[in-house]
């Protein structure tokens, strides 16, 4: 279980990105975090694994207070938190296989990782994951040879090979076309239910969020303004999150989509 209490982040520039956020996410829940650009979505998930240091408050994962950890302890805890990035953030000049195996860096010593001598089980698991996302043939290709959707699949493998308890997903579909976006979201969702993973997914696309998440949290100006079921996203709620706009079209579309599925 992940628990955020009074989590606050103020950047050096003085911008208050997160203001006293309280959130409790039970195991195996997929949560979508929506909100306008600059609402603090990215900051929130980065405060969990402390790629961004929170100013105050705490984040607790399975009774470990992440905000209090030493750098060694933090590295150990980061192994249990897989992260998937907006622009994939693969190391472009390494092969697909190396990118996947880099998810094991927290478990493997420096020299072993330097000479690419990962344990047998890791390699087997990497091949299995690549097969699972349909990229087994691509293992020896360089990451910059892949298409956007393929790269994001590699990114997913890198996060999963960590054998995480928690997935932090930052705008996984922002640079993908609509069809690939859905495939990626479906894949993440399937993998979460296969493994009983908890996930926080930052996402711009309200539609996708409603389709794939069990719970939606709306963030505006660093504060939680909505927390509830996807069906509860009424035009009034969306206005509260994003501001005044005609929201009827967005919501109608969702209904149609649901009938298709």
């Amino acid at each position, binding site marked *: 279980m992940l628990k955020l209490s009074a989590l606050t982040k103020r950047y050096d520039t003085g911008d208050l990105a997160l203001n006293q956020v309280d959130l409790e996410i039970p195991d195996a829940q997929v949560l979508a975090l929506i909100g306008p650009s600059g609402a603090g979505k990215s900051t929130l998930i980065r405060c969990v694994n402390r790629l961004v240091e929170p100013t105050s408050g705490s984040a607790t994962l399975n009774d470990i207070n992440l905000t209090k950890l030493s750098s060694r302890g933090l590295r150990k805890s980061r192994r249990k938190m897989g992260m998937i990035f907006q622009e994939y953030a693969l190391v472009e000049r390494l*092969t697909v*296989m*190396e990118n996947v*195996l880099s998810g094991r860096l927290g478990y493997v010593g420096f020299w072993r990782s330097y000479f*690419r001598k*990962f344990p*047998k*089980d890791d*390699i*087997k698991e*990497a*091949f*299995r994951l690549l*097969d*699972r996302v*349909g990229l087994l043939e691509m*293992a*020896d290709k360089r990451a910059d040879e892949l298409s956007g959707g393929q790269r994001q699949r590699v990114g997913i493998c890198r996060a999963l090979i960590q054998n995480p308890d928690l997935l932090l997903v930052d705008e996984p579909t922002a640079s993908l076309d609509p069809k690939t976006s859905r495939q990626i979201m479906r894949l993440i969702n399937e993998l979460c239910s*296969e493994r009983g993973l908890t996930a926080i997914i930052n996402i711009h696309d309200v539609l996708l969020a409603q389709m794939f998440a069990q719970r939606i949290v709306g963030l505006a100006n660093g504060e939680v303004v909505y927390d509830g079921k996807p069906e509860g996203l009424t035009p009034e709620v969306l206005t509260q999150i994003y501001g005044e706009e005609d929201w009827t079209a967005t919501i109608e579309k969702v209904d149609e989509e649901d009938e298709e599925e």
Partner: protein
Amino acid sequence: MSSLSDNRERHYPTVWDKPPFISNSLLRWGIILGAIIYLVAAIASMEINPQRLMEGIPRGQRFIASFFPPNFADNRGVVWDGILESIWMAIISTVAGIALSVPIGLGAARNLAPFWVYITCRSIIAGSRTFPEIILAIFAVKLFGFGPFAGFIALSLGTIGFFAKLLAEDIENSSESQAEAVKATGANWFQWINYAIQPQVMPRMIGLSVYRLDINFRESAVVGIVGGGGIGATLNTAFSRYEFDTAAAILLIIILIVMVLEYASSYLRKWVQ
């Protein structure tokens, strides 16, 4: 998509090696072997004599110790004169070199010049680039006698190889659509250069000329060794008279001036862009 249970039954390899950089193994091992043989031969040709090296250690220590503390006081007048001479030499050879580089650079741009002009200008550039400033300085000293004039000639010629080449490349890479648009207005050749080419290449050229001033100042510290004037002559004298503390002072001053020039050039580049 296959489900998890299917995957379990399949066997996946448990070994993986990074694909080698050169996939042809014969070629790969050939290159590695060749490199090792070359390195062994090259190091052997160094004639490293351990005994002589051991003897060199105390000599080196004494040598380095004699640099400290740097002596700015004695020979102050001479050092000051040398520095100033180097600065004037660097300035004027940069200006003269760039003035010569502009026509040569225009001539060496394939999209501007007819073929025979192109070939002539490219050969001038290649010649100037091949020979280090010192070799140019040796000949300049033979022709013009000792003193800063020879150094000035050598550095100006060296500037051509650097500046004209980069100018020509920049012109060749400049936007053709802008050039065409100006040509279409019926501009003559000089108007065309002035309106279509100059604005595109100017900012970078200003940055490069400061950079070249920096290089010319540093080079002016060595053309003096072969008689080309400047601080190099002073430095050479200090070394041959075993006045190492003065040499240390000169080296420190050179480093300081180069730092200032570097700072100025990065500032100027920012300002120009």
